[in-house]
């Protein structure tokens, strides 16, 4: 049993963070120099944390698997970042941002964490502007806002369709400034492959230089993981090809609880799958739902004619179209939260109204926006997204509506952390998408960027001091201690073992098989029998991997197949964990939809009396079922209701 102490400060919700900061322990400048912090990951969370800790005077070692920190997956975020600035004077406030985030997460997140997130959000915008992030502006020179799903105010800041890129470059540049100052040492193309524990605390990592294939031993007084989400368990997702769950699984196997693994977000607006050679799915930003209207044909005959290529979207008149989101949810219309929009698309396609060659697509139509605002305005707002669509699909979205379908996009679950972002392993912290803390069962658009930067710039730099303050007299280790030597040997033995399997199947072919099982049974709609079957199927895939994978080459030098194989092993563990958690959670909430638990209208039905808790899974050994630990969620400031976007 892991003791889950969330360490939520006492006092009224709005005072908790201030009172925490007033009472926490700090580390003085002379002592900071004596402390080493390992930060794994250079996405928004990792880069902002590494830069900030470097500025404060800690010795930081920062790792990433790409050739440059600037290429972390955060670079791909398109739409925007939320804050409660209330610049448009439309009624926004810190409380409203908090409330929308809690409600959007279907009441499955911790109030205190979410409120802190809403409190620091405004500082993020100020910070990024000061760094030279070129946010979109109005003619008067002030910052422009747009609206995103799940909110009735415009609170989203953006930089064209490349917000993640610009925010990440801001953090990356702050990081490179620290590299230049010598406070941060960068390790690129260098992968964490194990976490080293000494006397019950995380004290370092074993990493593998992906160019030479050599493992390295690194000491840190604390280790911070900011390694992103686990969407690629599904093989096909909107995540970058290299996004992986390995660091989180290493943490899990060292005793860090893994929270709410079944909460995965399916994004409603992605380019549909087009063939079995497909390697990833491309997101069309949610911001498009500001101006795009989603529809399918009203009549099945029309849908069939379109699928057969006998009719086009533009052949259908207005009253032959079913704008089903506007019909079902008049208050929020096309801007309902992602989980609601995704399920509604699946419902229409399953009922036979889908379009595209496969019937697994719906339209996202800009015709009325173009009529109202002109093509130039639409181009200025979404030009790069339209270009991206056209390059992939070979169809002009200014003329014909886009075709979209839901795809795996984001994972709300992650490594369990307390209020200080510390995992259940002492000295091991977790930030960004890799942790579970702020989004409950569903994340609202433009809130991941907000969370990653909040964690890295404004939360961890405080909370980690509360831990490190007790560590100022712990001398640096050399990496030659037996714990390091043993961990390194175990890693190399395992890699050699994988290479020795010499079976018949490529890593990707097995990963695709896992992905299909996940999509079919642990995807948008789940049920008991399907999940039980999935757990068996995943066990079979694990066996196939362990006995029949083929990895060419050796452990010397660069070996991409070996890297992928080691990551696939962890995705398999993750897949099983997701299925188990989904099976346990006998309710529907946010991104987790159990077919047995729905209202008559097909909306998600929570069971607050039984499941208002965080499911934190504890590793019990290879081939053993993990143990469930529960952290009760206590709501003192919001009333639990069925979400209503009608």
């Amino acid at each position: 049993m892991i003791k889950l102490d969330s360490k939520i400060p006492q006092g009224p919700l709005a005072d908790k963070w201030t009172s925490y900061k007033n009472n926490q322990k700090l580390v003085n400048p002379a002592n900071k120099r004596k402390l080493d912090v390992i930060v794994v990951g250079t996405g928004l969370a990792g880069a902002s944390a590494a830069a900030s800790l470097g500025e404060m005077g800690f010795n930081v070692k920062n790792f990433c698997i790409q050739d440059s920190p600037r290429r972390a997956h955060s670079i791909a975020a398109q739409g925007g970042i939320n804050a409660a600035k209330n610049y448009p004077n439309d009624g926004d406030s810190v409380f409203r941002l908090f409330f929308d985030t809690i409600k959007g997460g279907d009441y499955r997140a911790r109030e205190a964490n979410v409120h802190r997130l809403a409190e620091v959000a405004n500082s993020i915008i100020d910070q990024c502007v000061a760094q030279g992030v070129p946010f979109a502006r109005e003619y008067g020179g002030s910052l422009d806002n747009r609206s995103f799903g799940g909110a009735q105010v415009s609170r989203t800041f953006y930089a064209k369709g490349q917000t993640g890129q610009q925010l990440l470059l801001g953090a990356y540049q702050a990081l490179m400034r620290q590299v230049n100052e010598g406070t941060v040492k960068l390790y690129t193309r260098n992968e964490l492959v194990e976490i080293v524990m000494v006397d019950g605390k995380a004290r370092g990592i074993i990493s593998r230089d992906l160019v030479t294939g050599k493992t390295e031993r690194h000491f840190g007084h604390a280790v911070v993981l900011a390694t992103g989400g686990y969407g690629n368990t599904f093989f096909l997702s909107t995540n970058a090809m290299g996004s992986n769950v390995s660091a989180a699984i290493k943490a899990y196997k060292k005793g860090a609880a893994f929270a709410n693994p079944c909460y995965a977000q399916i994004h409603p607006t992605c380019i549909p799958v087009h063939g079995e050679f497909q390697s990833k799915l491309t997101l069309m930003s949610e911001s498009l739902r500001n101006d795009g209207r989603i529809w399918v044909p009203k009549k099945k005959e029309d849908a069939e004619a379109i699928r057969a290529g006998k009719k086009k979207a533009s052949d259908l008149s207005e009253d032959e179209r079913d704008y089903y989101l506007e019909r079902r949810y008049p208050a929020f219309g096309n801007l309902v939260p992602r989980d609601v929009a995704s399920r509604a698309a699946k419902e229409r396609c399953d009922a036979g109204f889908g379009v595209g060659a496969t019937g697994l697509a719906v339209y996202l139509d800009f015709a009325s926006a173009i009529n109202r605002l002109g093509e130039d305005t639409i181009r200025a707002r979404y030009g790069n997204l339209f270009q991206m669509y056209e390059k992939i699909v070979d169809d002009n979205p200014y003329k014909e509506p886009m075709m979209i379908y839901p795809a795996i996009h984001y994972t709300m679950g992650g490594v369990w952390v307390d209020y200080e972002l510390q995992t259940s392993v002492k000295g091991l912290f977790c930030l960004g998408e890799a942790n579970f803390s702020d989004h409950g069962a569903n994340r609202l658009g433009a809130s991941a960027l907000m969370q990653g930067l909040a964690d890295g710039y404004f939360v961890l730099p405080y909370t980690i001091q509360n831990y490190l303050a007790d560590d100022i007299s712990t001398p640096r280790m050399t990496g030659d201690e037996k714990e390091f030597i043993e961990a390194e040997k175990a890693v190399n033995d395992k890699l050699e073992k994988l290479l020795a399997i010499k079976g018949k199947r490529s890593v990707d072919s097995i990963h695709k098989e896992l992905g299909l099982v996940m999509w079919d049974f642990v995807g948008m709609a789940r049920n008991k029998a399907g999940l039980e079957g999935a757990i068996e199927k995943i066990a079979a895939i694990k066996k196939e991997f362990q006995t029949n994978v083929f990895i060419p080459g050796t452990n010397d030098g660069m070996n991409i197949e070996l890297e992928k194989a080691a990551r696939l092993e962890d995705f398999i563990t993750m897949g099983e964990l997701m299925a188990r958690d989904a099976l346990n959670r006998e309710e529907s909430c946010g991104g987790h939809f159990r077919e047995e638990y729905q209202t008559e209208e097909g909306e998600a039905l929570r069971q607050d009396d039984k499941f208002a808790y965080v499911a934190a899974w504890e590793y019990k050994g290879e081939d053993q079922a993990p143990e469930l630990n529960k952290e009760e969620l206590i709501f003192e400031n919001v009333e639990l209701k069925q979400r209503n976007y009608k």
Partner: protein
Amino acid sequence: MEKTINLTLKVWRQANATAKGAFESYEVKNISTDSSFLEMLDILNEQLINENKEPVAFDHDCREGICGMCSLYVNGRPHGPDDEVTTCQLHMRKFKDGETITIEPWRSAGFPVIKDLIVNRNAFDSIIAAGGYVSVGTGGVPDGNAMPIPKVDADEAMDAASCIGCGACVAACKNGSAMLFVSAKVSQLALLPQGKVEAARRAKNMVAKMDELGFGNCTNTGACEVECPKGVSIANIARLNREYLKAKCLD
């Protein structure tokens, strides 16, 4: 209707940084013209693995044109025969049935080959570390709207900032110059009041680092702009030169 094509690929293979590389030829069949160029390479690699051979190593990550990781020199053009795309956005409909496609890594003194089609672009990080930022720490900054910025400047800064650091400009340049890359960052920051303060110093330090790392001089051939997947304009180089001169005058 789905169309498929057969191709011959001439691919640069090189075991590591010090090994001597050479072209190898491979056949791939029934490639859907809807697949992307990198998906075509995935198919080749699956084929090689099934023949117990080592797959071709190439860099990629986001596969949607934003991370700057993919970097192939296809039929003599960085990012291949389409305009304003990265290699990962290149689709097989740009190729003809029976065609031979030559695939090489970026070739430039500043970017040594690591393996097969993968090169080392750490030099770009070093150039940014030399000054490609605003010297501001976390916290204690003014409100985001404290300083109005004309929309035209913000938009122009955004265009320059859209550089993805892929290095195609260097690969396209006969002198192996990194001027387009450097000028994009210098311009973005010089256009914004937050970055203006250090503009001249930034230009000087970044150019000095670029020279030190073995990139060539710019002779205004304009090849970089043509091959840049993000349409970064060479007007930025003129702005860089102005800032650089300012710095020299101040010295």
